[in-house]
């Protein structure tokens, strides 16, 4: 290919981004754009899959049949989100199998929020309210992200996430109308999850070197600090209506980086769980492949 043809492709790409239109899998894209997308979508997909564990921890102990059904359906939705996102990632030329291996090896990351333990049933509600809530703030702008398959996956996902947030909040509101022990359980849970939820927006803008390039490419649409401020503003009246006190907003970024680097309370446990499920299922996947190839 000539240098002039290359420049034409790059100009076409830039024009598409500038017009706010979507880039599709067959379109030319800069290698840096492709790599950034793979990293971001894979990390997002892995977060959905690892995110099944903290709440999945309570499925077998859900205290009512209605809550058991709601929780099981929610965790199942997260598996579905993982599926959509792995599919979006596959349009960029990487396989789900490779991505799963990179998750298990630690080569690719997932959201640090899932490295905190769930210690009471109230955590199911708090995760829905604050963690799905923060995810929505992060993700709704991504419905308009420049890469078509990612944006379309996000539209489906955001609808379900907003349902999860409502259900989580509704659980907490119900528990707050219950016994004193239940109210204390809700407050204790919010105390543990508030700051980790705020950290879901990522490091402060000053320490987020990739933000500007991602914004120029239309992959990201708001800075971390903008989104975090919006979330705090949004949560205050919800907390008041619930009757809980939100802890302060001062964040310990050393803790954040420690967890990102693998030193959180549950990092090893979450990966070991995923690895075990993956390894235990290897013979089933092999059988399915062999059967699909066998003559009928």
């Amino acid at each position, binding site marked *: 290919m000539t240098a002039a043809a290359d420049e034409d492709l790059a100009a076409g790409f830039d024009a598409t981004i500038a017009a706010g239109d979507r880039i599709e899998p067959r379109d030319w894209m800069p290698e840096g754009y492709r790599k950034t997308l793979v990293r971001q979508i894979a990390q997002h997909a892995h977060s959905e899959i690892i995110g099944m564990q903290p709440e999945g921890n309570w499925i077998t102990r859900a*205290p009512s049949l209605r809550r058991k*059904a709601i929780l099981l359906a929610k965790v199942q939705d997260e*598996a579905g989100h993982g599926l959509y996102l792995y599919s979006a990632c596959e349009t960029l030329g990487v396989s789900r199998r490779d991505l799963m291996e990179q998750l298990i090896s630690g080569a690719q990351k997932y959201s640090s929020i899932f490295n905190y333990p769930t210690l009471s049933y109230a955590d199911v509600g708090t995760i829905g309210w604050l963690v799905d809530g923060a995810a929505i703030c992060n993700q709704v702008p991504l419905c308009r992200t420049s890469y078509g398959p990612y944006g379309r996956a996000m539209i489906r996902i955001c609808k379900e996430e907003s349902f999860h947030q409502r259900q989580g909040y509704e659980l907490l509101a119900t528990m707050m109308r219950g016994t004193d022990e239940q109210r204390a359980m809700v407050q204790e849970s919010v105390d543990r999850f508030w700051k980790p939820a705020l950290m879901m927006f990522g490091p402060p803008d000053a320490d987020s070197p990739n933000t500007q390039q991602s914004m120029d490419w239309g992959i990201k649409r708001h800075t971390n600090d903008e989104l975090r401020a919006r979330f705090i503003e*949004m949560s205050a009246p919800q907390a008041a209506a619930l009757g809980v006190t939100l802890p302060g907003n001062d964040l310990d970024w050393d803790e954040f980086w420690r967890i990102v680097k693998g030193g959180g309370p549950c990092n090893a446990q979450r990966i070991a769980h995923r690895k075990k499920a993956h390894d235990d*299922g290897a013979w*089933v996947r092999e*059988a399915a492949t062999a059967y699909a190839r066998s003559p009928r």
Partner: protein
Amino acid sequence: MNDDHDSAYAGLLVDDAHWAFGEAAHDDPLAGMDTSIPAGVDATELASYCLELGDDALVLAHRLSEWCGRAPDLEEDIALSNIALDLLGQARLLLTRAATADPSVVPPLPDGSPVPPEDALAFFRDDHQFRNTNLVELPNGDFAETICRVLVWATYRLALFERLAAHPDGVVRAVAAKGVKELAYHRDFAAQWFVTLARGTEESRRRLHTGLAQVWGYRHQRGEDAVAEAVLAEVLAAAGVAAPDVGPVATSSHTEHLSRMLAEMQVVARAHPRGRW
């Protein structure tokens, strides 16, 4: 570009009375249904029968929910959760029906407890009060054993539910009518995997044989059923698998596994007998 998905974001920023500050109504599983006892039906027997059918669904739903986040691939994870959700739905209707037919089956709770009857039955009965068969309470085993159990159980349950279309109680008929569609899907999902594992690799075939032998002797604890047997024979033939040489398991009690399962299932509910969830 279509911007209507942005409204979800906007909706969260404002005082949205539809969810954040509103009261969630507790949904009565039998809302809108006629729960009077039909003429000629013995209420105690009806309640007891609904407990049998409801407990089977509840216990198997619980076992299948243990797979969530642990299945061989995401597709199977979603499918097993789907089956568990269907069975949970059957259990809620049937337990609630048992309680409306004969309120004396519901264990007593402290005065003022808001726990609904379906949950009192699920979470506040002891193991010896459960009416489920052994088949559903056995531990999951590996994926092959789980597939064998779902195949055997759903095949038997489907044959039964088809006959329940003629049951005198309207609630039982409604549960059966809905359940027939669900169970046909569960059976077909399991049959598809049964054939796949049988014709997959040496290892999958070995595991399938082991799994089938584990559950086979428990399949007719509610009586042998010629319709179900014929379907099972067809699936085994399609898979090229011989029926295991295992006789019926003779037992009138639960296995050791049920009380351990219930200890986990009931722990939070029992710690808060006056709790609202």
